[in-house]
């Protein structure tokens, strides 16, 4: 712990980095304006997506955005 904290990520937001899919899914799945479409993803479906994502990823490896 001799080095001073490096403020890099905080001071320099990742403006132009590819968006990580996991960050995007946090937002597009569980947020958004509350409207009733004729078809929407239910909360149960979202949970299923999360479960299947975890199951898939635990066998495949990690998920980082933009294929980096």
């Amino acid at each position, binding site marked *: 712990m001799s080095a001073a*904290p490096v*403020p890099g*990520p*905080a*001071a320099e*937001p*990742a*403006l132009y980095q590819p*968006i*990580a*899919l*996991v*960050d*995007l*899914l*946090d*937002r*597009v*799945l*569980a*947020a*958004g*304006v*509350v*409207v*009733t*479409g*004729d*078809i*929407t*993803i239910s*909360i149960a*479906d*979202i*949970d*299923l*997506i999360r479960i*299947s*994502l*975890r199951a*898939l*990823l*635990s066998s495949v490896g*990690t*998920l*980082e955005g933009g294929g980096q």
Partner: protein
Amino acid sequence: MTSTADHAPPAPGQTTGAEGIWLYGIVADVPADALAGVAGVGGHQPWTIPVAGLAAVVGHVPLAEYGQEPLRRNLEDLDWLERTARAHHAVIDVLHRAGPVLPAALATLYFDATGIVRLLTERRGDLTAALDRVTGHAEWGVKGYTTHHPAAASPAVEPDSGTPAAGPGAAYLARRRAQLTTRAQARHAVEEDAAAIHAGLAGLSADARRHPAQDRRLTGTDAEMVLNGAYLVAADREEEFGELMVALERRHPTVRLERTGPWPPYSFVGDTPALRGTTPSSPAAESAP
């Protein structure tokens, strides 16, 4: 029937029973050619349905792929999900850069334009108010990871030789410090730090909320996520926000921070209390006043 829509979809032909309308978001107005060249979900060019000072930005999509049943199947296909989520976001991001937008959740579909016209008509008041709230703001994501590595945790603290003649207060502190070296206590301390960081950032934001912490397998990092915050920050306070992040990181060295954004205000356009309880692992802390 789509007679209320001023802007016809670019694709020739009428809406058939085999197509649905995908909702990207709602805006006050769409600047001319903001959407030109933007490929929407499935490569279907977005268009707008304007009603009385609001406009829904939508796209036609085939129900064979996006109808209720195929949708459910496709959502479990990670490639399809990623492609669709990124296309959805790309349209909303263009709108966000041009002005205030209320993003719709992924896969909000209508069978025809009448449902959308009804939405814009009947909920004009609260949609307009929501647009006002996000005008001039962007969402920033701040993720905090613990810098504490359980495997490298130091053994219990030896009696502190620096304060041999100390009284019961110091003895208590020494005991307390020893307790804190246990993993559970360290974990608790990190969570308190994360909550303090969240409260600090929320204080500078128009609104704030915590998303569920991301699974370690999804983040691709070894460190455990202890904060997955979203902050609605006014454009003229963004620099201050970044400075505050640096200060909070110094004050709470148990947590390493990472910033994402600017995002369209996904996390601040609707009240979705039911969704906040879906993550058992997430601390229940909510926004500061």
